[in-house]
């Protein structure tokens, strides 16, 4: 996990003391408001009521909680796949466009990125409500004779989360596609490959780092997503973040909530470490390489 190249040391070097002094506020902030609270929380999960793994056993033994975990994984996977299917063609067209069309496409992709998650979730609540636009349309085209329950279902959560997380998929794929020199496609064409073969054997393999980066980014975000499932989901089909919130705030079962956070953090960490060699965060953030 490095940001190498981005931050290469250069020029007259700072003294050791200077570096420590300049970095100290950052380390104090992270230690106080990130590391300590997290370690503190996780320690509760194994120390209370007595040193024990019982809190973790409950997560996996109780079928209700195991189902929440499984459902969360399934929804996160579904959202990632949907995002990929929707995003790749958009990124492809963006990378192949120039001038006003490229600007227009980029603006369309970036606009939701810059509007509030709460606003977008509210928009889906309005669209999916009983007499909302989706139900009106379904009735107008005769697919259904009376309003269908769309809100507070797993489908609502999946659609809205895909909408919110999609831009995180488009940008890395677009970045990877744009870095492919156009000579490659020409070389493939001269060698006799048609556009389809060029796509499968040249473009797609070279775009894979962007694809994997996007999928991981969306998958990780979806695993711990709180706002959209809390507002649009059904209480019977809870995801892990809502369960954590419920155990923490309503049941006041802090050790168990902490164990749930532990499981979630473990998932996220393993996936990140496993893929940290494949994708680099600085590229995801739009940094130069």
């Amino acid at each position, binding site marked *: 996990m490095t940001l190498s190249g981005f931050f290469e040391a*250069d020029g007259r070097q700072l003294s050791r003391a200077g570096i420590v002094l300049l970095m100290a506020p950052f380390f104090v902030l992270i230690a106080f408001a990130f590391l300590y609270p997290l370690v503190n929380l996780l320690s509760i999960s194994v120390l209370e009521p007595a040193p024990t793994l019982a809190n973790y056993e409950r997560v996996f033994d109780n079928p209700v909680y195991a189902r929440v975990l499984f459902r969360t994984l399934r929804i996160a996977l579904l959202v990632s796949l949907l995002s990929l299917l929707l995003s790749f063609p958009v990124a492809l067209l963006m990378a192949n466009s120039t001038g006003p069309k490229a600007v227009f496409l980029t603006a369309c992709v970036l606009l939701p990125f810059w509007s509030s*998650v709460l606003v977008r979730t509210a928009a889906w609540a309005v669209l999916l409500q009983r007499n909302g636009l989706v139900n009106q349309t379904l009735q107008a085209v005769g697919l259904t004779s009376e309003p269908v329950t769309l809100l507070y279902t797993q489908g609502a959560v999946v659609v809205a989360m895909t909408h919110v997380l999609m831009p995180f998929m488009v940008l890395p794929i677009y970045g990877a596609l744009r870095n492919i020199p156009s000579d490659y496609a020409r070389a493939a064409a001269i060698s006799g490959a048609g556009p389809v073969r060029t796509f499968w054997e040249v473009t797609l393999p070279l775009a894979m780092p962007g694809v994997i980066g996007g999928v991981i980014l969306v998958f990780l975000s979806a695993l711990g997503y709180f706002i959209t499932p809390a507002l649009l989901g059904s209480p019977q089909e809870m995801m892990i973040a809502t369960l*954590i919130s419920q155990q923490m705030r309503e049941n006041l079962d802090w050790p168990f909530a902490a164990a749930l956070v532990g499981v979630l953090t473990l998932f996220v960490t393993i996936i990140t470490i496993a893929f940290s060699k494949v994708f680099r965060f*600085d590229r995801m953030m739009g940094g130069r390489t």
Partner: protein
Amino acid sequence: MNPRTLLLNAYVYAVLAFILVPILIILPMAFSETQYLAFPPQGFTLRWFADFFADRRWMDAMWFSVKIATLTAITTAIIGTMATYALVRGAGSLGTVFQALLIGPIVVPHIALAVALYLFFQTTGLSGTVTGYVLAHCVIAMPFTVFTVAAALSSVDPALEDAAMSCGASRFTAFRLITLPIILPNVIAGALFAFIISFDEPVVAFFLAGIRDKTLPRMMFDDIEQNLTPIIPAIAVLLTVLSIAVLIGAALLRRMSERNAAAPKET
């Protein structure tokens, strides 16, 4: 246009419709005369904006959010620029630790951070306080500010500072008079990003909210959950205008910064 390109275009425009329709549909509802949220909007009124600005609770929440976001932006810009400068000028092994810790808040889900801070702040009395929110939002916004500042800093020719120092300037003077003016647009852009991230942050706000002091996103969450009034589209319009203004501002600043960094090298 061959059929394959046509198909790709059609698919992409369908996807763009999926992206844009929900956003474009909620905005005009801010001007609808109906009490409930429905499309298409009927009539035209600015009543919901007036309601928003007249309501004490919404105004309190907005100013509370503005206060937190401003403090977050300033704190993040200062701390982030200091650390990034040390990194670019040779932090060695400490730099590796810095980078790992910088990535941490991106990787760890916000729900985990929010719950951890909820517990910690309960025992330290920081729950619901400005300090508590600012600390949490600084952690979340820091990576974005650092990346923005680092982009400018890594393209500043270190020979400029070396020259200033060989003329007798201290390291700090060289930074203040040479480097800082060059990277300032990016530092401000980074601060703007931090402002927007903080102003729009719903998860930590959900857990840290006190009984009295709520942030704007927290108030919006409650409204969406309970009654979903037309005030939400009105806020959506205001937030969209704010975000677009910040986005354009940040882009302009970044372009300025690129010009700043490029100019001295050409001569």
